[in-house]
């Protein structure tokens, strides 16, 4: 590999070979002259930390894929089923379905995404950027299990090209690429992205047949005002033994991943905390509306509005979105005060969309994309606010007599 890299140095394909090299080895170049940045966490290490936080979720999701499949078959046959971690969850049968369904999603996501990255790196003649490492891992975790692979491939091409490369590549994108991919899939192929058939392996193929199975998400039940028919307990929701997109179900593992990211200072705790607060506030408002009797049981919003406000956090993709999507340092707000506002509205709008969008009762990805768009505006006003405050302080400051007017001007220029 070292020789290949040297052989192609300066040639057109050099970025591609450099990428493989840096993927497999530590770069064999050292900086000449003085170095100024002495931290160990470069982009590669940042990305790998996020991936480490995602690996437990991926493994859990592979077991859950199988568990939901066999649970749905039992439910269709009327067989009662109790969850037992070692007897019917962590089994080879379950894991095997994870291998044949989740791994291909992962492979396609990485393969297609990195191919696009390589092509752009070669055309533009820059080094391949590590940005796709995390996106490629996130994508399979936020799609339904039976998503056809070619759809995923089309969406990945769209997301990486339109969501990222047209803006100039990693670090320049306005929208989170993983969510762009998810949104594209949602608008392009809605029949594969919603309903009660897409969340369980083979449910689409078996639909209408004698052995038809289905697995409605909790949000789906609530949106149809069928919350009472639902057989999932709060601990099922928290630990993630529920149907949903591949990796979004286990709040426990997401929480652990989130704490790990906060501990390593990769992700912003401000955004996570404020998003949680935002969703709780919106949930509380809806609960209050129900308590006041303004919304009756006949209303189509009743199911979701009367849902306990704190339970919103442990179902659907809200937790996953808050921890891994909202905290994307590129597309999120940059200023500390901006992060509070940005996170709050993500939580607030997510729950609002859940309640008011009966066609598709999950709004996390839409809420985060919307706030991605507003993040620069929020930052702008935060920075302007700081400037205004400091200008005011400067005006009120007593300028010492020996300072000439010129000095004050200079000070003003510096402050701005």
């Amino acid at each position, binding site marked *: 590999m070292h020789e290949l890299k040297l052989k192609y140095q300066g040639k057109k394909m050099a970025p591609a070979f450099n990428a493989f090299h840096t993927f497999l080895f530590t770069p064999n170049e050292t900086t000449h002259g003085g170095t100024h940045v002495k931290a160990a966490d470069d982009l590669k290490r940042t990305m790998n930390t996020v991936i480490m936080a995602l690996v437990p979720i991926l493994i859990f999701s592979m077991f859950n894929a199988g568990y939901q499949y066999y649970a749905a078959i039992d439910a269709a046959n009327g067989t009662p089923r109790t969850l037992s971690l070692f007897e019917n969850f962590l089994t080879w049968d379950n894991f095997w379905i994870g291998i044949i369904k989740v791994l291909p999603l992962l492979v396609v996501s990485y393969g297609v995404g990195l191919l696009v990255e390589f092509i752009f790196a070669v055309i533009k003649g820059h080094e391949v950027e590590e940005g796709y490492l995390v996106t490629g891992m996130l994508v399979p975790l936020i799609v339904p299990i039976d998503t*056809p692979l*070619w*759809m995923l491939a*089309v969406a990945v091409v769209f997301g990486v090209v*339109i969501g990222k490369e*047209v803006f100039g590549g990693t670090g320049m994108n306005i929208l989170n690429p993983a969510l762009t991919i998810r949104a*594209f899939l949602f*608008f*392009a*192929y*809605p*029949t*594969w992205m919603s309903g009660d058939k897409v969340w369980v392996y083979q449910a689409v193929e078996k639909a209408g047949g004698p052995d038809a199975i289905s697995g409605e998400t909790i949000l789906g039940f609530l949106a149809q005002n069928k919350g009472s028919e639902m057989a999932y307990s709060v601990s099922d929701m928290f630990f993630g033994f529920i149907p949903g997109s591949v990796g979004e179900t286990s709040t426990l593992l997401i929480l652990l991943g989130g704490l790990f990211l906060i501990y390593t200072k990769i992700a912003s705790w401000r955004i996570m905390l404020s998003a949680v607060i935002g969703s709780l506030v919106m949930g509380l408002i809806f609960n209050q509306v129900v308590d006041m009797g303004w919304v009756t049981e006949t209303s189509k919003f009743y199911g979701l509005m009367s849902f306990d406000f704190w339970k919103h956090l442990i179902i659907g993709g809200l937790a996953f979105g808050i921890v891994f999507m909202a905290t994307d340092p590129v597309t999120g707000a940059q200023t500390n005060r901006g992060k509070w506002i940005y996170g709050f509205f993500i939580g607030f709008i997510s729950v609002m969309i859940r309640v008011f969008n009966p066609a598709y009762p999950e709004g996390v990805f839409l809420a985060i994309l919307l706030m991605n768009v507003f993040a620069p505006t929020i930052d702008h006003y935060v920075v302007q606010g700081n400037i205004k405050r400091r200008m005011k302080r400067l005006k009120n400051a007593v300028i010492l007599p020996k300072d000439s007017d010129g000095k004050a001007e200079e000070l003003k220029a510096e402050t701005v």
Partner: protein
Amino acid sequence: MALLSKKDTNLITDPLADNNPITIQVLGICSALAITAELKASLVMAVSVMFVLAMGNVVISLMRNIIPSKIRIIVQLIVVATLVIIVDQVLKAFAYELSKTLAVFVGLIITNCIIMGRFEAFALGNGPWRSFLDGIGNSMGYGLILVIVGFFRELLGSGTLFGIPVLGDPIEKTGLYSIGYENNGFMIIPPAALIVVGIIIWVQRSRNPALVEEN
């Protein structure tokens, strides 16, 4: 003896590529987004705009010396409105179904920026023949983009071209659909047109770097 002098030929060919009303002048985007979900609608829209723009350019050009400049916008509006009503009535009489698809957008040709733009920029300062050619050229440039966008949106979004299924039957699962292909619902909604137009602009500018603005 060529029918058109070189300068006149440029009036027609320039707007097709390097001075395209949609991709370079960025005019008339609204209708390009709204009606390009079907190729047929795109084509009819292109022809309608061609008629209105070419005729309007000639009329304005003939009247250019007698229009008081203070009220020229109003005069231009009356000319466009007259022509648009003619188009609308013709469509209603001979292609009723299609006129329902295009609905309000034929009426909105009045507000199509290309038309007012060309009246102001060209017809007020040039003779009728050259204005006519300019109108034809610009509306062809407009139509070209509309047809390209309409082609991709209808093919990928509905699997048809001019309403004729070309990829097989999505319900009977024939052709491409038998191997799992599905229509892309995203292409039906207007934001897809924005992205397709964006890609056309991208391709055009990377082929001709002279078009890229300095900033």
